[in-house]
């Protein structure tokens, strides 16, 4: 919006007619001696009008301002005033019709009074055109004196030259596609146009004239062939042109100005660019009109946003708002005023205006309200106040979802699996994968439309159908449809849930979404088996109630081994290891053990859930689970390391693949140059090299894919292990739901391996944040700036931070994130605990391990201790730990066949009890005898802390 506006000086309106670029002509067409301009317009409806604006005599348009109005027989494309008639230098009007050009003389017959004078339009001559015309240029072609000739460009790119009353010749423009604007340049005697090649092209008149076809002696308009005309010069401007003008003002160098669709170009008459101006709007018309300063050409540019801009070369000198979007603009001189801007819009608004110089900044305030009804106003005020008070009482300012808008998804999961599995395409081929069929019901209180339902199982869980579509839902008959879930991948997922989300439109058209989570039973991914006596990883859950018979707890998973005492149960995960749950006979403890750390998660969760439910059913509300002993950080770190290793491997493989690919391309390039060479050179085994590289690329690509599969699996393991860790942390420190939510948000179980920034970096950043805010030990911690999130080089930092996190939590740190960060941290608690904590950093009940890790021996902080601990930490769990085996698929006992289980002593009745007791005695200290490790600080952490 401009600050200035153009001021209407005079205007006229022609409704219902259409005008274009060439339809406006300002000239002293009746050759009146005072030299004042008349404004001529010709419309596509064929009406030719001449006006003499005389606003001095009153307001606006008056009937006598119209000098002449004539209805011609065909549309008017362009009007041009010039010396078109032989024998006189008086101005005549050339009118271009599609198939005709006519030259008229306009003469005044003056009367005694204003309304008595009238104008006569006399046709001097006309030429019929063989081709449909587009536009025309005029001028003294060939340097002729005192005359103007016409050059008409047709739609097919033919230039026809008319030397006044006689036809001269026609020529084709080379490489023609669409006609562009055309102008004649007197100084160089040539025509310029902008061709469809988006370049300014110049053709010498002499070249056009002599390029005659030698065979035909007589020139005619009906040519069908001709010599190729050579271009004088061309200049690529890269866009189509709106208009071209040639100017030669005395103060400025002669220039060709080209208005492109987004730029203004100024070109010397010899084809060199003088300057260009990028325009930030779409121009619709332009006119270079004067050179008021030395060497600076003033140009008017009108835009499609109805602005009129005045440039001096490339500098904006003025801008004003027009009332219409013009198709043509001219500057005219009238008796009363020089320099009037005449604009013509497409729909026939002809206006002569001048530039306003009052900025339109002032906005009139509404006048004092007339006759206020004070009582009414007071009432309204009260009403409004009440409403505001009501609204501000409600704390929640978000728009509330109306309950009737809502669609509800209910999923009912039956307790038992499908009798016949409905799994389709599971990746495990050699054994049958069970499935469970849940029934999804969509209920809504009103008719909703465009319901899209998506079902997505977590991780490796698949479903028989993933999307459902309903064009509308009838509230009276809610649809019920079954969806079967099953294990699709080769390993169990980290969570036994499926997400069902629906998007829909309520009748007003507003979109809504709704989401629900379906929990699936453990039996979907595991089956009962014989309990295993020994296992590498163990988790012990302490409770405050007497132990419950496991058969009672897991009635659905007791399987064939029912009848046992209910103190040991085995679960075999499909595609995973065997997990054994043991219940202590005497104490209130349960143990879950397995050879694979992450596989513990599903069963631990199920156990805790079922225990809680069981005791709730019994009516004991004070039931609590807890986890005592050191958290299994080391095992967790191994899983993280394995995952990180695979991620690094992915990066490495990608690099190798890139390198091989570029090698392949360079060999191809060399081969290509050899093949193209006219004198063939020996290939020098390049073909073999190409073949070899190709095979390498394939191999690396396969390795990449394999690696990705492993990475997915490792990611799943990290997710499961993280969930397990989170649960254990919660149980150890008795966290509230809110704190647990914070923990779960930071130590997130969501593992996304597709982005560059992986789980390790995200978790590290989140934990660093926790350590800096609510778990900060001193004010110093809180002020340091967090580092930028980048790809981690190793997992050392993450492990350090994780240990620190656990340590701070163990010392009573709280994850209260509300209010001022760190407010809830008790200063006394965060003091370092005595260094002489006499426990291993992990909950490893192995006596050998205990010995190896004897921390009392080493003075903390000494170099020796640091080295020793460093050495011990990674080694001991693998080799020193009695029951531990190195982690890795190859070293795991075969799980697939039941045969391997057969070698275990049969469990049953009394024997199992004995067995369990044996177990306790052998490798595991009796659960009851387990030392209660005090909350302690792992050794490693002490040193890390000093490093920090």
């Amino acid at each position, binding site marked *: 919006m401009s600050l200035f506006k153009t001021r209407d000086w005079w205007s006229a309106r022609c409704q219902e007619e259409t005008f274009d670029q060439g339809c406006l002509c300002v000239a002293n067409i009746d050759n009146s001696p005072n030299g004042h301009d008349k404004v001529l317009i010709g419309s596509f409806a064929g009406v030719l009008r001449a006006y003499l604006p005389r606003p001095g005599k009153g307001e606006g348009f008056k009937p*006598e301002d119209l000098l002449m109005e004539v209805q011609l027989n065909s549309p008017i494309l362009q009007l041009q005033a010039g010396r078109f008639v032989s024998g006189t230098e008086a101005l005549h009007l050339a009118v271009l019709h599609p198939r005709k050009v006519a030259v008229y003389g306009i003469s005044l017959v003056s009367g005694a009074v204003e309304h008595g004078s009238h104008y006569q*339009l006399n046709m001097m001559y006309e030429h019929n055109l063989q081709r449909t015309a587009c536009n025309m240029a005029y001028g003294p072609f060939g340097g002729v004196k005192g005359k103007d000739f016409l050059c008409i460009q047709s739609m097919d790119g033919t230039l026809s030259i008319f030397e006044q009353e006689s036809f001269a010749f026609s020529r084709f423009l080379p490489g023609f596609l669409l006609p562009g604007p055309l102008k004649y340049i007197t100084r160089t005697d040539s025509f310029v146009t902008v061709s469809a090649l988006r370049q300014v092209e110049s053709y010498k008149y002499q070249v056009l004239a002599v390029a005659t076809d030698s065979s035909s002696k007589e020139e005619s308009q009906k040519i069908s062939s001709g010599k190729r005309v050579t271009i004088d010069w061309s200049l690529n401007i890269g866009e189509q042109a709106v208009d071209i003008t040639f100017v030669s003002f005395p103060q400025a160098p002669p220039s060709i100005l080209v208005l492109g669709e987004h730029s203004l170009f100024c070109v010397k008459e010899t084809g060199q660019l003088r300057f260009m101006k990028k325009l930030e709007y779409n121009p619709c018309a332009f006119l270079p009109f004067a050179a008021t300063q030395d060497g600076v050409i003033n140009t008017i540019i009108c835009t499609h946003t109805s602005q009129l801009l005045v440039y001096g070369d490339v500098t904006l000198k003025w801008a004003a708002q027009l009332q219409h979007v013009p198709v043509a603009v001219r500057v005219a001189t009238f008796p009363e005023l020089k320099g009037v801007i005449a604009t013509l819009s497409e729909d026939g608004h002809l206006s002569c205006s001048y530039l306003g110089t009052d900025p339109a900044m002032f906005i009139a305030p509404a006048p004092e309200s*007339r006759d206020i009804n004070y009582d009414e106003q007071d009432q309204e005020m009260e009403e409004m106040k009440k409403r505001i008070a009501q609204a501000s009482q409600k704390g929640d300012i978000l728009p509330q979802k109306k309950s009737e808008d809502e669609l509800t998804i209910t999923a009912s999961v039956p307790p038992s699996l499908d009798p016949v599995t409905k799994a389709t395409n599971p990746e495990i081929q050699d054994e049958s994968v069970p499935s469970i069929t849940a029934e999804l019901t969509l209920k809504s209180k009103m008719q909703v439309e465009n319901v899209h339902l998506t079902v997505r199982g977590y991780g490796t869980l698949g479903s028989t159908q993933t999307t459902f579509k309903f064009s509308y839902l009838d509230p009276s008959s809610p649809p019920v449809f079954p969806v079967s879930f099953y294990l699709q991948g080769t390993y169990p997922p980290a969570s036994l849930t499926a997400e069902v989300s629906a998007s829909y439109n309520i009748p007003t058209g507003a979109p809504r979404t709704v989401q629900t989570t379906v929990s699936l039973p453990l039996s979907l991914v595991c089956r009962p088996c014989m309990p295993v006596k020994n296992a590498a990883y163990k988790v012990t859950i302490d409770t405050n109630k007497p132990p419950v018979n496991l058969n009672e707890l897991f009635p659905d998973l007791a399987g064939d081994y029912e009848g046992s005492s209910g103190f040991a149960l085995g679960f075999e995960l499909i595609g995973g290891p065997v997990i054994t749950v043991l219940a202590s006979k005497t104490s209130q403890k349960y143990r879950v053990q397995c050879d694979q750390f992450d596989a513990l998660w599903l069963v631990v969760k199920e156990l805790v859930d079922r225990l809680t439910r069981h005791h709730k059913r019994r009516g004991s509300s004070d039931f609590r689970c807890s986890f005592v002993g050191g958290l299994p950080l080391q095992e967790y770190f191994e899983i993280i390391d394995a995952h990180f290793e695979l991620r690094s491997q992915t990066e490495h493989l990608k690099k190798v693949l890139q390198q091989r690919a570029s090698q392949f391309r360079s060999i191809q390039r060399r081969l290509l140059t050899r093949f193209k060479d006219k004198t063939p050179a020996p290939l020098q085994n390049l073909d073999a090299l190409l073949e070899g590289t190709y095979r390498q690329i394939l191999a690396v690509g396969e390795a990449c894919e394999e690696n990705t599969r492993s990475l997915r699996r490792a990611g799943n393991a990290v997710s499961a292990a993280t969930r397990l860790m989170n649960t254990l942390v919660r149980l150890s420190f008795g966290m509230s739901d809110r704190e647990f939510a914070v923990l779960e948000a930071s130590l997130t179980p969501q593992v996304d391996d597709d982005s560059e920034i992986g789980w390790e970096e995200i978790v590290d950043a989140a934990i660093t944040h926790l350590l800096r805010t609510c778990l900060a030990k001193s004010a110093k911690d809180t002020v340091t700036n967090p580092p930028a999130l980048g790809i981690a080089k190793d997992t050392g930092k993450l492990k350090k931070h994780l240990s620190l996190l656990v340590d701070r939590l163990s010392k009573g740190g709280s994850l209260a994130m509300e209010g001022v960060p760190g407010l809830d941290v008790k200063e006394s608690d965060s003091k370092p605990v005595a260094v002489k904590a006499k426990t291993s950093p992990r909950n490893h009940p192995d006596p050998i391990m205990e010995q190896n890790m004897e921390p009392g021996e080493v003075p903390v902080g000494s170099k020796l201790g640091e080295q020793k601990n460093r050495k011990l930490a990674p080694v001991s769990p693998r080799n020193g730990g009695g029951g531990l085996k190195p982690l890795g698929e190859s070293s795991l006992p075969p799980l697939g066949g039941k045969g391997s289980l057969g070698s275990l002593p049969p469990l049953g009745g009394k024997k199992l009890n004995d067995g369990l007791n044996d177990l306790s005695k052998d490798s595991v200290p009796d659960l009851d005898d387990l030392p209660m490790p005090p909350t302690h600080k792992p050794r490693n952490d002490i040193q890390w802390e000093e490093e920090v």
Partner: protein
Amino acid sequence: MAALDALWEDRDVRFDVPPVQMRMRPGEILIDRLDSIEDTKGNNGDRGRLMVTNLRMIWHSQSLLRVNLSVGYNTIITISTRTANSKLRGQTEALYILTKCNNTRFEFIFTNLVPGSPRLFTSVIAVHRAYETSKMYRDLKLRGALIQNKQLRLLPQEQVFNKVNGVWNLSSDQGNLGTFYITNIRLVWHANMNDSFNVSVPYLQMRSVKVRDSKFGLALVLETSQQSGGYVLGFRIDPTEKLQEVVKEIQSIHKVFSENPIFGVEFELEEKPQPLEEVTQVVQFDDVEIENEGQTDAFAAYFADGDKQKDREPVYSEELGLAIEKLKDGFTLSGLWEVM
């Protein structure tokens, strides 16, 4: 006779007019009536009624009848739809009308308070367009393209009553021989030698038609209204009896036309017209007329360019090479531009 000269309805913008001026004049027809229209510019927050006639738009407040506007179509420069801020509707699409009357520009913004109804826009824009394209019914025209193939180009509602040959136009010393066409809407004369020398005078713009003595002898003297330029046209018809006859005919048609003028704005209602009784009940005008001429300053709210009533006269600027509005004292063109 002189009453017709006072046709101001379509050529004026008036504020807070007395009820008598809100009544339809003869020939003026109420085309559409919209009951929930806000005058967003001058009376934001006030519910009002907009009446669209074939000559003008009338808006008045629902609560106070004397708060009103009358906007003639002839003053309208542009009509557009834009987003405006209404007290009653908030951000909404509104009808913007820019007018110019006595060299002062006024801007009007009307908002329809019925959500989603385009009737405001369609009615006003369509009627204004019909008005614009029927100017020949109402405006005097000189040197127009009236004649085609030696025949008068008739307007849609026009009928030729009489054609009189041998009419001399006395506007030049030697006179021009031409032809009269007397129709139900206007009087047309054109020169036999030059089709583009002609004049078309609608009865609407006729001030008087008389027989007077001139230097050419007895002549038909036609005075046109002030708003059409106040021309005096003289025609001579021989013999005198024929002249008297023609004058009488024109006078009587003029009289009939004055009673029931044809403004030429044609329209078709797409919706069913409102029942007659509803229309007749519309405005309960007070009989008492409060004389408060000259006191109202309501127009101040409608200025299109702030508080500026009139543009200053144009002058040629050597600096730009174009005509500009004369600068206020102490201002320079470059100073004004560089402040921006």
